[in-house]
């Protein structure tokens, strides 16, 4: 799901905190159809990229996996908010994500870094095999091509510069303003740097672990403050950036109201870009305070989309070309044609037999019963196929064994015909 398909509340309910990605990948691996997987979880999207021989059952399993993640917080159907892509469409989607064509702010550079980070995490967790390895490396080079061959990136208005733009609409000058950064999240870090380049006067950094605050403050020339103390320092801050993974709200409307009285109503600009909401949405109701979260920044950024559409077309062309190349590679994998043929064969049989029965002895079945029968036969087929398929695992190391199995399958099921 991404910023278009799901509102922030839903996104944050399934978001994976960086520290737990490994554990989540481990859980995902236990689902029978998933062979390789990478989880990507940013402020704007939660995606599960998986390689599987049976796309339909794999996507059902991923949905179940996401629902399970969500169930810990909130139980509502995810169906309205997720999108599912198979085959070349899935490849295309990932390439577009990597090239920042699917971003809230098209052309922003952060997504590629995030993608690499989550890919590395998956690799460390051992859930990346031949297919995803190739797929992700291709996606990185697609991103590079798009950046070099189109002007999308050079004209990129990142979320950070949208924030700076807004700050300039609220404040006359930035060189007498103080920024407070809460949390050491990547987006916050980037935004603080951006504001610094725009000439803000000073920067305070706080984080639950004080060492990280000190370290970050050192890197971006800010002053670290203790996490317990930050509410007291809010009075000094004209801009406050919240970018923590904290599940609870850090600053509520009452606090801001009090702070504002101490500031003699001097305007404040709060930016909430954490994985979860850091600031109470009611804050925006207060006079002289402006609260923007990631979705709001999107609205502002959308204006920029229009003028980039020409370059975007060029970029889509590059993506299309690369998708084609990748699909050709997949098809060239030795076992793929065999697997496809085997599936087709069984599916044909299932269909024929089903039709015969439903037209004959089972003619009186209701619509519901017909559906149940359909589901049952599909499940049966998948179960039967599961064992042979896993022996043909795409990333199986033993080449000889694989060749043997392929030959056997071809013969046994008469696939060469």
């Amino acid at each position, binding site marked *: 799901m991404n910023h278009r398909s799901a509102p922030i509340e839903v996104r944050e309910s399934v978001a994976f905190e960086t520290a737990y990605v490994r554990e989540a990948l481990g859980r995902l691996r236990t689902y029978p159809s998933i062979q390789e997987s990478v989880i990507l979880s940013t402020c704007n999207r939660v995606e599960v990229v998986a390689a599987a021989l049976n796309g339909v059952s794999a996507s059902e399993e991923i949905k179940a996996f996401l629902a399970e993640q969500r169930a810990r917080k909130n139980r509502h159907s995810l169906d309205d908010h997720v999108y599912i892509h198979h085959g070349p469409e899935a490849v295309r989607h990932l390439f577009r994500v990597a090239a920042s064509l699917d971003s809230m702010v098209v052309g922003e550079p952060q997504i590629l870094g995030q993608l690499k980070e989550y890919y590395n995490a998956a690799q460390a967790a051992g859930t990346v095999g031949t297919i995803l390895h190739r797929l992700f490396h291709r996606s990185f080079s697609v991103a590079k091509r798009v950046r070099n061959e189109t002007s999308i990136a050079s004209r990129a208005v990142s979320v950070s510069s949208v924030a700076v733009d807004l700050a300039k609409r609220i404040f006359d000058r930035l060189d007498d303003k103080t920024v407070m950064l809460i949390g050491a999240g990547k987006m916050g870090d980037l935004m603080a740097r951006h504001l610094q380049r725009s000439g803000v006067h000073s920067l305070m950094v706080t984080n639950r672990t004080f060492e990280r605050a000190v370290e970050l403050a050192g890197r971006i020339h800010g002053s670290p403050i203790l996490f317990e103390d930050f509410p007291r320092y809010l009075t000094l801050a004209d801009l406050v950036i919240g970018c923590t993974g904290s599940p609870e709200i850090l600053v509520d409307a009452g606090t801001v109201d009090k702070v504002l*009285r101490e500031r*003699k109503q001097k305007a404040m600009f709060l930016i909430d870009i954490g994985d979860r909401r850091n600031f109470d949405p009611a804050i925006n109701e207060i006079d002289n305070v*402006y609260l923007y979260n990631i979705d709001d920044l999107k*609205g*502002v950024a959308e204006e920029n989309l229009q003028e980039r559409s020409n370059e975007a077309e060029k970029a889509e062309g590059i993506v299309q070309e690369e998708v084609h190349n990748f699909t050709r590679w997949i098809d060239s994998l030795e076992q793929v044609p065999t697997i496809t043929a085997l599936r087709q064969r069984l599916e044909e049989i299932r269909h024929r037999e089903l039709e015969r029965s439903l037209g004959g002895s089972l003619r009186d079945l209701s619509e519901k019963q017909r559906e149940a029968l359909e589901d049952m036969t599909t499940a049966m087929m998948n179960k039967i196929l599961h064992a042979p398929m896993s022996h043909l695992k795409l990333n199986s190391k033993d080449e000889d064994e694989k060749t043997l199995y392929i030959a056997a399958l071809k013969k046994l099921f008469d696939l060469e015909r």
Partner: protein
Amino acid sequence: MDVTLLKVTAVLYLLASASFIVYIFLVRDFVSSLSPIILFAGFAVHTAALVIHFLQTGYPGVAQFREALSFYAWLLVAGYLLIQLKYRLAILGAIIAPLAFLMTLAAFAFGTGGGELPPGLKTYWLPIHVTLAFLGNVVFALAFGVSLMYLLQENYLKRKKMTSVMKRFPSLEALDKLNYVLLVWGFPLMTLGILTGSMWAGIHWGNYWSWEPRQISSGIAWLFYGVILHGRITAGLRGKKAALLTMVGFAVVIGYFLLGDSIFPSRHGGRFE
């Protein structure tokens, strides 16, 4: 002669208004520098009309209502042009230029004849009092425009809608500061306007304060602006509330300026004996 010039003035103000409005909706930078120039041309012609009027009749054209309107428009444009020089606030012209045009136009609606000036007004108190009172008023009119811009910008920022029109608006902080500067200028001018009026009344009528409707309404407006100024200096009154109060204050002042004398007849204004 001065009437012809006034007609030219009205046309130029109309052109300037159109130009400012084009500037808001079309992203053409040359329009932003062109509009104030047209407005300045109108202002120059307007000045000439006022000077010629003075030379022909021997008294400044501020006594009759239509003269007052035209003079007010002249001060308004002068005030705006000064702000434009310092703050480059072309967008404010989109409010001021149409206002000046309408006032000049309204001046024609009240006849064009010269008329004889009542003897009671043939004194230097007239131009001094009217100029100071109007100057205060004009500064508050500009503050009204600035406050309106503040509220529009604030509203867009709160609703998180960003249109290209809003990009032409200065930042909230700049608008709020300018609003404050105008208040700081407008308040003493208004005070002087009331003081000179009172002194003139004292000399002419024999008592300085006779609870005329005009005096009462000015007194209320003066207190109102005084409270805003005090609030801004000491109590951290700023932003949206300050902008709203500034607009309310001016609505009262201008409302009385335009309608007061016909609702509460008094010795002031047209019925001056």
